[in-house]
């Protein structure tokens, strides 16, 4: 991502952000509410358009590609809220990720190419089961999402994104609302994925978690990068501390919890 700008009306949600994520890198993205973190993920995954700037994935420009092609390029994501489909089992939800490659063939192929469909169904089921095992939920496949507690439900979302076999994984506050033990499990999982060579961008409010798992951190405020570097450096940065503890924007911090609830 280079010099990306996104404006909503007069608000500059992203104001000239440049960002590169390498294979195996786990990039932490921090910043107060409204600083542009989710907008950044939405821009990378092509859920929203840039007003200027470019997006490249492995050297290929996809700035104007539709969102489903971003996934085809190897970008998978989770969302800030639980977005599992209630009419399907947990395994079938994860299969939505595992079937992504086959879905790219288009509706007619997936509808009418029966011999291939049967093979794909088996493959997707196996891949989805493996993804569930990877996040530690191997026995929950037959359950329905609404029967799961919040923590496991969020892990299912990670499994669904992993089932796409992405090269770049975008995680929007994956551990928000989880217990401490669950947070640690997810932290370990993300570190392992990073060791396997997966590039990741992690949006997270829990700075301890960021320090523990990330190997690089970018801090945003008002849509701009205010600090970048190793986790310890960024955490010590004067601007970052100011943005979080709120000298300039104390009012914003006070309203933060309400925004959080509004998004749920």
């Amino acid at each position, binding site marked *: 991502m280079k010099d990306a700008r996104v404006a909503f009306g007069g608000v500059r949600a992203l104001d000239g952000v440049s960002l590169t994520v390498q294979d195996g890198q786990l990039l932490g993205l921090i910043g107060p509410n409204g600083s542009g973190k989710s907008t950044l993920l939405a821009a990378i995954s092509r859920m929203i358009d840039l007003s200027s700037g470019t997006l490249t994935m492995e050297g290929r420009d996809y700035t104007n590609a539709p969102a489903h092609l971003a996934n085809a390029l190897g970008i*998978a994501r989770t969302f800030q809220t639980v977005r599992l489909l209630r009419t399907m089992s947990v395994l079938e939800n994860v299969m*939505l990720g595992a079937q992504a490659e086959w879905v790219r063939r288009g509706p007619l192929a997936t509808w009418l190419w029966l011999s291939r469909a049967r093979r794909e169904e088996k493959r997707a089921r196996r891949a989805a089961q493996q993804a569930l095992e990877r996040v530690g939920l191997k026995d929950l496949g037959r359950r329905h999402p609404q029967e799961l507690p919040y923590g496991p439900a969020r892990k299912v979302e990670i499994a*669904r994104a992993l089932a796409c076999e992405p090269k770049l994984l975008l995680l929007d506050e994956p551990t928000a609302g989880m217990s401490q033990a669950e947070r640690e499990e997810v932290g370990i999982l993300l570190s392992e994925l990073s060791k396997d060579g997966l590039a990741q961008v992690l949006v997270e409010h829990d700075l301890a978690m960021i320090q523990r798992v990330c190997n690089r951190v970018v801090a945003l405020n008002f849509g701009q990068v205010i600090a970048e570097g190793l986790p310890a450096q960024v955490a010590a940065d004067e601007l970052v501390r100011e943005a979080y503890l709120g000298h300039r924007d104390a009012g914003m911090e006070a309203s933060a919890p309400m925004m959080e609830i509004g998004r749920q």
Partner: protein
Amino acid sequence: MQTIASISSWYANNETLIQEILIYALLAFSIQVALRSGIFSLAGVGFYAIGSYAAGLLVKEQAWPTALAVIAAVLLCALLGWALSVLLVRLRDLYLALATVAFDLMVGVVALNWSSLTGGPLGTVGIPISVTTLTIFITVLGAAAMLALMQRGTIGRTLVAVREDEQLARSLSVNVRRYRELAFVISSMLGALAGAYHALLFTDIQATDAGFELIVLALTMVVIGGFGSWTGALLGAILLTWIPIELTSIGQWWDAVYGAMMIVVATFIPGGLISLVTIAGRASRGRARPSLLRRGSAAAAPPASSSGA
């Protein structure tokens, strides 16, 4: 011998009813396949009208063979349906429903005023009877098989995702627009089939045939039967064709009865009557989840969508 005689006499007495059920089943499929894919389109009724005129006129005026006329009518509607889906690509939910109802009514107005082609208010009459009940039955079977495939596996899950969460679907490689177009075109073709068979079986077409009443009837069938599966649409078509004939004494109170049935089913059984069958089936296999009855309409689709079994 007596049983065979009584069956054949029952069939002779009820053949019209069976024909109507089969034709309405195709129309109900047309609405159901769109609804299940999250497309609140009632354009199937407009294509019913276009299909009936196209097939009826080709057979009557141009003396085309039946099969060719039906295929031509269906392909014409597929093309028009695709064009309409492109026009309405940005519309969702109630706005889409209103736009497609407007389309249906426009088709009716055109049919009424284009007298040189359609006969206007006099209608198109004297179309030779050119299809058999068996042909229609086989078509319904074929359509049901295609819809059943569309509910299963990859495409089944994909269409549920398109219905429930478009953005999520996009993030998982789904070209949402293509899937919506497919559902729209299939819906148009099924509507056209229903109309074509109606014209070729009952020999006349009136411009008022495919009016607001037919829209309400088709939607009622799908809501009461259940929109989550083709079986629900079929059940709705059977019930709403058969019951009015059994209960003729109600007469003009029918609209009120439809309304009441709609309200009761939509409120208490959002998955439609077919979901009761599915729940009963589950219960008998010892996996009862009666909570399905109480959940909100967002989760109303009966488990046909979850093809796990």
